[in-house]
């Protein structure tokens, strides 16, 4: 099964929509709740990062019998130093975003903790693509 969702940068009111849709589908497929939890945590963080840090993006979810592959491709500023971005607590989020309780610098570490495979491709000034793989067993 292949699904696709569009995400607009800056639109926090819609953040989490793709995550909640995917959660529903995985529940219907009777996927183990502990696996669904990991998918939801990783996808929500990645979705919020497009909203908080990029201009727009597309989320693609590919569900197969063995697991799910999530690809989040955005047009945005890119990440100049990926290692730094992965450091827990590192964040370039604006004050307004921090006041909402986002921008704690825990997103990328949360994704990496919950994914079986995690890859970041990024070009500064162009955009970022995350690929997240989670196995069902």
């Amino acid at each position: 099964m292949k699904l696709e969702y569009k995400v607009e940068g800056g639109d926090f009111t819609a953040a989490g929509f793709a995550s909640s849709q995917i959660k529903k589908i995985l529940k219907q497929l009777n996927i183990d709740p502990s696996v669904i939890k990991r998918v939801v945590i990783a996808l929500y963080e990645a979705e919020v990062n497009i909203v908080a840090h990029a201009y727009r993006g597309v989320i693609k979810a590919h569900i197969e019998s063995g697991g799910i592959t999530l690809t989040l491709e955005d047009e945005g500023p890119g990440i100049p130093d990926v290692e730094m971005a992965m450091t827990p607590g590192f964040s370039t989020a604006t004050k307004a975003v921090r006041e909402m309780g986002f921008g704690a610098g825990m997103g990328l570490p949360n994704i990496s903790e919950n994914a079986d495979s995690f890859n970041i491709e990024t070009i500064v000034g162009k955009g970022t693509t995350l690929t997240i793989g989670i196995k069902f067993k």
Partner: protein
Amino acid sequence: MKVKDVAEKLGLKVFSAPQGLEREVSGGYTSDLLSDVMGHSQEGQIWITLQTHKNIMAVASLRDLAAIILVKGFEPDADTMELSEQEGIPVLGTRMQAFELSGSLYEILK
């Protein structure tokens, strides 16, 4: 213990989704950082926070939390209440601040 028992014992105001008062409470989690709650809360917990915007409902729903309690007299935004009704996850409120409320909730749940 159910959300409604917690609401009664702690004298909480029910802002939205009274149909969710029957949800079972497994514990509590106090934090104003959404990523922290996303990554570390457990299913069935009551979330104590001062954040009032709609995204708290997305987090509560994605993590299957029992309810949200807003502290210090804060009130949920209109779209937060709307989503709360849709998801059936109540938003409650108190004048207490997070430290006091967490202590009181801890006492009645232990």
